[in-house]
């Protein structure tokens, strides 16, 4: 019974460094520079609706691409022998251990106008193509960086699907396609939900990939927020309002995916 007290330091810590700061974000969002109440920050924020829209749109594309690439991969890995599975999963995880700034930087080397790809294409008389500083490059950066976040949760649910279940489905007359639709897909829904959240959240809020691969030529909501706090456009009130908008977008997204799974499954998938 007394063991409950052990949680007290954490609760205190969380109150101090999570609840109070979030409260401050709310406070800043609803006040002007002199501390008076205002909704003006949100009105101003509306000017950036196109930025917010394109952030969400690019993140959705990146998430969908990740799902499309990762789903077959995770399934194929999960049907390999135990040792092969272990090696492949390690291979998926290894890039995650490198800082994502370095991984994104690698793509700068590849995509530049006189970068590796254009030089190779040049050798066979093609290009140069304008690849960096495009929306495509930003989406590529997101997919590249966050693909493992999609693969791993999918793999961890799929590896728990017993081969006998698939055999049973086949035995009951399912074609491979039907087996996938009727058995594998429903059983992997929690993994899909986790994967979507884990890719969408960092994609929609990134302020680095867009700068490095988008060349700052167009902004995402993350860049907007960053600029209000550390950039030339210093305006923490507007930045706080935009942060709240971002949170609301994500809460809606999480509520949508949360329908699939309960918290206890979640922790297994996250780690």
């Amino acid at each position, binding site marked *: 019974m*007394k*063991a*409950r007290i*052990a*949680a*007290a*330091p*954490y609760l205190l*810590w*969380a109150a101090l*460094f*999570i609840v*109070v*700061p979030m409260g*401050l*974000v709310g406070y800043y969002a609803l006040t002007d520079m002199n501390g008076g109440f205002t909704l003006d920050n949100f009105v101003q924020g509306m000017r950036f609706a196109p930025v917010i829209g394109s952030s969400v749109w690019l993140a959705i594309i990146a998430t969908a691409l990740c799902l499309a690439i990762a789903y*077959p*991969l995770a399934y*194929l890995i999960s049907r390999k022998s135990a040792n092969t599975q272990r090696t*492949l999963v*390690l*291979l998926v995880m*290894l*890039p995650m251990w*490198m*800082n*994502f*700034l*370095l*991984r*994104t*930087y*690698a*793509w*700068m*080397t*590849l995509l530049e106008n*006189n*970068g590796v790809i254009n*030089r190779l294409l040049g050798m066979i008389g093609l290009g140069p193509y304008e690849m960096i500083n495009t929306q495509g490059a930003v989406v590529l950066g997101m997919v*590249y960086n966050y*693909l493992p976040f999609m693969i791993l949760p999918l793999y961890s649910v799929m590896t728990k699907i017993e081969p006998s279940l698939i055999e049973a489905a086949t035995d009951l007359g399912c074609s491979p396609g039907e087996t996938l639709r009727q058995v594998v897909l429903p059983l992997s829904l929690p993994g899909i939900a986790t994967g979507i*959240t884990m890719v969408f*959240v960092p994609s*929609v809020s990134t*302020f*680095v990939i867009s700068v*490095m691969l988008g060349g700052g030529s167009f902004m995402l909501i993350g860049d907007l*927020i*960053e600029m209000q*706090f*550390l950039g030339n456009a210093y305006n*923490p009130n507007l930045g706080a309002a935009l*942060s709240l908008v*971002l*949170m609301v977008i*994500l809460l809606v997204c*999480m509520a949508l995916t949360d329908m699939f799974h309960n918290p206890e499954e979640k*922790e297994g998938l996250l*780690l």
Partner: protein
Amino acid sequence: MTKKQNSLTSNLYIFIVMAFMYLPILVMIAYSFNNSKSRGAWSGFTTKWYADLIQNESILSALLNTLIVAVISSVIATLLGTAAAVGIQAMKKRSRDLIMNFTYLPVMSPEIVMGVSLMLLFVMFKVDFSLFTVIVAHITFNVPYVILSVLPKLRQMDKYLFEAALDLGCTPLQAFTKVMLPEIMPGIITGFLIAFTFSLDDFNISYFVSGERAQTLPVLIYSMTRKRVSPEINALSAIIFVVVLAVLILTNLNDIRRENQLQKGGRRG
């Protein structure tokens, strides 16, 4: 026949995705030996970027900062998180669910929001950015991961083990250290390692709370990438890649060895 084709296509698919994931890194490593400063052109082999890197004081001090932050923050996060997990497990279901939902919040919410919210806190209370603020921020985002890796171990634990220890004469404190702690140790270690690596790797939150003086390595890397060309980054990436690869291989070999031992032990038995 078709089965063979299937496995061929599946292997090809795996190969293509892996190539997508590794080619950029390999290209970057190759270019770390490129004599030319330009990212595209190849003009001969050199190791001078590695020499530059080792002599670059700002990189070395950033590395030191990163290590200090990672060690301190992950140790504190592990202590806080383990205690919290023990406490949460002892709670009634309602308060447990409430706290767990609340614990997920920082895990699921975008890092930039946590970064700016902590920045506002420190600005508001006039705390200068320093290693201290970075450490506080890292503890804050790491504790939930420790809780999430310790809690399942507590749940899996036979609930009568604690009572069995009391029954055999342990005081509650002895029962905790002699029985419960060894049982949940794997979870605590996992939590610590997650906290440590996340701390080493974090950019999004550190960026907002580190200021000029307490740059961690990722924050410094970011400022380096803002300058158009800096081949030292390639060299740094190569080193990090090799270190990570070595660590992964070593831990994995260790795992395999332990598993083999277990199997052997099982067979003896």
